[in-house]
């Protein structure tokens, strides 16, 4: 993973929800800042603002990057060769900036920004997070202020949505339906082929709403050229050889299925799958068959072993043998339990590892990451 990151300018960290993408993104960025130097930025789009917590930054100001203070590294006992910056993406203000940039004039921009549909789109339209994330990435990369940008992708319903966002945005503007909706109201009546469409639309949504939609799309269409152009550039950047995708997954069934789909999709879209990080896996000794046998034996012989241990002169002399027996049984059955999970994880792993050569394991550490030291601990597993 270290070599991979060293040769790239953009690392997109993606994968199913709830597997620790944000932590892995922060870990990759902080390891690179520490050991490879340069200016490293980690961008997160997550509305839950997890990155700030993981980096112990408090709340990162939205709409700009914050430098992770050198003291945070000092507290973790390291002296970084480079700088680590973090940015929290604000979907709403990024959309506003995008509209202002592509609008033909200030008045049109104003009218779009004030439109009630637009407000709803920029705040609620689910895929707008996806699109704005790649769009912001493009902007940051072209500004050229950072040697490496690590992007934590937004929690999509489906990890793949993130990849398809630019394409969908371009499709949106070129669709026939946009044309149908932006036809002036009067000439609609003349178009017999489209009449059922307008009839149903009217009945369902009401004329007034339809007019609002029409007005909005007519305004929005003025942005079309700039948007389509931009969406293409964004797509090109994602497919560029300087960009790589790191897929993060846990070894639970559902995330694995999603990560697998993602790993299969990346190459078909000409995107570079650089690595796979398996997060929160059980420690490997839990798979040891000899240990499992010993655990069974421990449970089976718990009574006898307890009386030996508690006998006069034994290491647990003075303890209640029945209590010790219970603890020994618990030790055995606990190991038995974790073995079941570790085996389940192994089966899941073999499904994924065939798809990706570079695999890093981060064990379930049994405690949470809440400061830079914790982020770097995860980083050391990802790095090697």
């Amino acid at each position: 993973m270290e070599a991979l990151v060293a040769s790239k300018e953009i690392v997109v960290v993606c994968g199913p929800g709830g597997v620790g993408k944000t932590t892995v993104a922060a870990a990759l960025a902080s390891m690179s800042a520490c050991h490879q130097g340069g200016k490293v930025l980690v961008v997160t789009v997550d509305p839950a603002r997890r990155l700030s917590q993981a980096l112990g930054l408090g709340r990162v100001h939205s709409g700009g990057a914050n430098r992770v203070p050198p003291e945070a590294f000092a507290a973790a006992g390291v002296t970084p060769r480079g700088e680590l910056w973090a940015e929290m993406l604000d979907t709403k203000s990024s959309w506003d900036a995008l509209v202002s940039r592509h609008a033909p004039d200030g008045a049109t921009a104003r009218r779009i920004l004030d439109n009630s549909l637009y407000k709803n789109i920029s705040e609620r339209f689910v895929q707008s997070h996806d699109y704005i994330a790649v769009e912001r990435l493009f902007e940051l990369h072209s500004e050229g202020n950072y040697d490496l940008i690590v992007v934590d992708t937004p929690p999509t319903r489906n990890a793949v949505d993130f990849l398809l966002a630019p394409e969908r945005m371009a499709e949106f503007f070129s669709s026939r339906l946009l044309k149908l909706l932006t036809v002036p109201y009067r000439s609609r009546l003349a178009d017999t082929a489209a009449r059922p469409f307008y009839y149903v639309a009217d009945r369902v949504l009401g004329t007034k709403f339809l007019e609002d939609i029409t007005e909005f799309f007519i305004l929005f269409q003025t942005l079309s050229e700039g948007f389509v152009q931009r969406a293409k550039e964004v797509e090109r950047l994602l497919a560029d050889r300087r960009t790589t995708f790191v897929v993060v997954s846990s070894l639970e069934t559902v995330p694995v299925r999603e990560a697998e789909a993602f790993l299969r999709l990346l190459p078909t879209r000409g995107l570079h799958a650089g690595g796979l990080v398996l997060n929160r896996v059980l420690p490997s000794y839990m798979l040891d068959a000899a240990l499992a046998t010993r655990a069974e034996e421990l449970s089976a012989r718990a009574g006898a072993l307890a009386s030996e241990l508690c006998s006069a002169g034994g290491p647990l002399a003075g303890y209640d043998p029945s209590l010790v027996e219970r603890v020994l049984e618990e030790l055995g059955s606990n190991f038995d339990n974790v073995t079941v999970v570790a085996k389940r994880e192994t089966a899941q792993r073999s499904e994924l590892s065939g798809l990706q050569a570079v695999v890093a394991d981060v064990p379930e550490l049994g405690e949470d990451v809440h400061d830079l030291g914790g982020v770097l601990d995860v980083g050391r597993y990802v790095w090697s």
Partner: protein
Amino acid sequence: MVAVPELLDRKLLFVTGKGGVGKTTISAGLALLCASRGKRTLVCEMDAKGDLASSFEVAPTSFEEREVAPNLWAMSMDPEASLRQYLALQLRLPRAAGLGPVTRMFDFVASAAPGVREIVSVGKLCWEVRERHYDMVVVDAVASGHVIGQLSAPQAINSLVQVGLVRQQTGWMLDILSDPSTCGAVMVATPEEMPVTETIELIGSLERETTVALAGVIVNRVLPELFGTREEQVFEALSAPGATGHLSAALGGEATPLLDAARWMVKTRRSRADHLGRLREALGDRGGALLVYVPYLFLRSYGLRATRQVASALSAELES
């Protein structure tokens, strides 16, 4: 303190939570439990990932509900099909005529006008409740980031659309969604930092932005407590070199990893207990009535067997 109506006495439950906490397994377990108690139950997967079908080990679900167990029907949401059904019922539009362009129009308008897609999805489920087709409708809803938009869709539509069919539908839907004895949201969380933080935030948004009441908070994958205080002392004593050495000799090999695995479990459980504490604190007085715990399942795979175990864990919890 307002009494919380019993979880299973409601008619419509939206089960949500952060991605990856086991929403679908819990929804399937809740639905199976209701069905086994004799309620005619519908369970609906909102985001059509297909995980609901694997929870029952049946063929992929579709918009047309299908009986997957006695008393239990399963479906997956398709907003477009839902709109068609709506139009056929409300506008009495013949299914074939003129609906071709509607589909594409719908997709398009729904992308632009938030609330439209949501309202036909939520509308379908409310309709099943209104028509009393089922005693209980369990919704495997979308994850935390998106669920508020879904549940607040009637209000969003009210503010955007002045007339039209969609607008006419918001009134009766709001009546159902806002009645705490009928409808409620169930939050699923795992006892970990981010899921708990998100759950607390989500409860806040639910109460601020929607009219749907909080019906329960289900904590999933709770690790077992291995030792009480006295057992813990024995465990520490066993960890001393003399005792561990004795065990290793008796078992014919290193026993330390067996102790390590227990220590790992204790430590992981303990760090999670802190998060549970945070959740309990955030719920305040209501916690006792709302919180439900489902143990971590040490199973080889997730399927019907896991769903059954979740159902019986929920059953035991909801009775206590």
